[in-house]
């Protein structure tokens, strides 16, 4: 009986070393990986097959909903609920409803971008198993980390540690899960 684990982690000094390790881990059949880097790494993102376009869809769809809500609110309140005849002008004067509709669409899109990103990334998450790894704070400065997650069907603690050490990972070790 071993304590529950989050995965196995190793440290790399260079982004190229991390990329090689990701390829090696994938070649060995691992699918549940996570990598940490102090700046965006396009090649590793492609290896992982990350598709952030979901965020664009969330943002744009929310923007359209915001536009519809704003237009409907203006129509409902100024045409149906509280019609105000100003000099015989048509009640449904749509051009005057457009500016606020566009502005509110931008407001909703922008807000949905931040909230959608947080939702997709499960943030804020102030407590995470990797934060307990000694030296992990350098992931925000100059070190790169690769994690083979325990969810991986081929996960085996010793084999994973051996693999990471073999591809040049330093301090390969198990990451205990949070309580």
């Amino acid at each position: 009986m071993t304590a529950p684990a989050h995965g196995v982690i190793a440290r790399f000094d260079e982004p190229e070393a991390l990329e090689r390790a990701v390829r090696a881990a994938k070649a060995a059949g691992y699918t549940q990986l996570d990598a940490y880097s102090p700046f965006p790494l396009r090649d590793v993102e492609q290896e992982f097959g990350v598709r952030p376009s979901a965020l664009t869809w969330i943002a744009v769809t929310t923007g359209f909903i915001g536009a519809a809500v704003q237009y409907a609110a203006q129509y409902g309140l100024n045409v149906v609920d509280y019609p105000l005849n100003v000099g015989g002008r048509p009640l449904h004067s749509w051009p005057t409803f457009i500016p606020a509709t566009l502005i509110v669409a931008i407001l909703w899109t922008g807000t949905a971008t931040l909230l959608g990103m947080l939702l997709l990334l499960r943030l804020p998450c102030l407590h995470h198993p990797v934060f307990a790894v000694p030296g992990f704070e350098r992931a925000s400065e100059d070190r790169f980390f690769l994690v083979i997650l325990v969810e991986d069907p081929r996960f085996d603690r010793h084999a994973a540690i051996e693999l990471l050490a073999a591809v040049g990972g330093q301090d390969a070790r198990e990451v205990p899960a949070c309580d």
Partner: protein
Amino acid sequence: MASEVSTFTTPIADAPLARRFSPAWRLALLAAGGLVGVLGLTLAVSWVMGVGSWGVNIPFVWGFDLTNYAWWIGIANGASLFAAILVLRRHSLRTAVNRFAEAVALSGAICAGLFPIIHLGRPWLFYWVFPYPATYEVWPQFRSTLTWDLWGILTHIIVLGLLWYVGLIPDFATMRDRARSSRRQRIYGILALGWRNSVRHWSYHQTAYRLVAVLVLPLLTMMQSIVALEFATTLVPDWHETRLPLHFVATGLAQGLAIVLLVAALLRWGLSLEQHIDDRDLDLLGKLVLASALVAGYLMLDEVAAAYLSEPSEWTATRNRITGEYAGYFLAALVFSVVVPQLLWFRAARVSVLAAAYVGVSVSLGVWFDRFSIVIGGAQRDYLPSMWRSYAPTLVETGLLVGTVGLFAALLLLFVRFVPAVSMFETRHDEHEDRA
């Protein structure tokens, strides 16, 4: 565990973490804080005594207040245009100045947002423009530009804040990891939202950053248009024109580009960023300012021609604006925002930091004079000759303008004190690409 490692970006991260800042910074904050005090005092007078403490009266209902509002919006727009384009084009200059441009935009928008609220007369009731059933179940009039303005300013401040904050999340994580005291670790840790530098997260983060930057672009033209439509929908002869939104957008763009030129020149000179802001950048910016100044000049001519061909009341109003009591402001607008930038026809002037700074300040001043000329000069000849009066700002109004300059400076000083002034993750990325 606080990181003690020393890397390329350490100086950027350590500046906000320093226990004390230089005496020059404290002196500057003291001066800016004094002006914020003036702002607080004049705000208090405006709130307690009411807008009767201002020089405004019919027909000058807006006076200094809207002049300064339109002007600050121009500054915010210019800086945010600059920041958004840098993010979208992945320009190398982005790394060095983007964070700063975003902070300038946000501070400008905050200063701008103060004015419409104060001029309401009873500012504590500003929420009446929100669509909620008020006392008599009267809904707001959504056909009014004033309700558009509420959404406009609100959106402007929120989206600029988002652009700034989204770019800052990873850098807050670095600050959290480097902070020594647990109080700072907690503050930066909460601001970083638990950012852990996962490669997957980076991918979404970059998409989010660019999405917000795209949103800024339509927002700019809409903000200026809404300000202009507030004038155009009134019956004041000089304002009641469909050309006004174009005038505000185009002169606002000239002002924005001039501010960008000024900031670029100052950064290059003050921070020795020659390799980031080279002669070609200044040359290009100079040409853009020149082109937009020519457009502004064309629009000022168009203003006169359009008024000449309109009804007599409109021609009377516009002619009075050009030749009457406030003619000096119209002339100043023309000279500062159209004539002075003609210097930029010469290449030597375009690549000179001094000339760039001079033209930048000049166009920005010129646009302030233009706004003053429209808001005050334009309202002097209304339909009723019994209303033909003069206007001069009182001390309280002047204090509000000076106070917002102080607020702007104070916000920027606090920004360099507590937040990394240069984007650290972009700097690391650039450094990595340079080595590769």
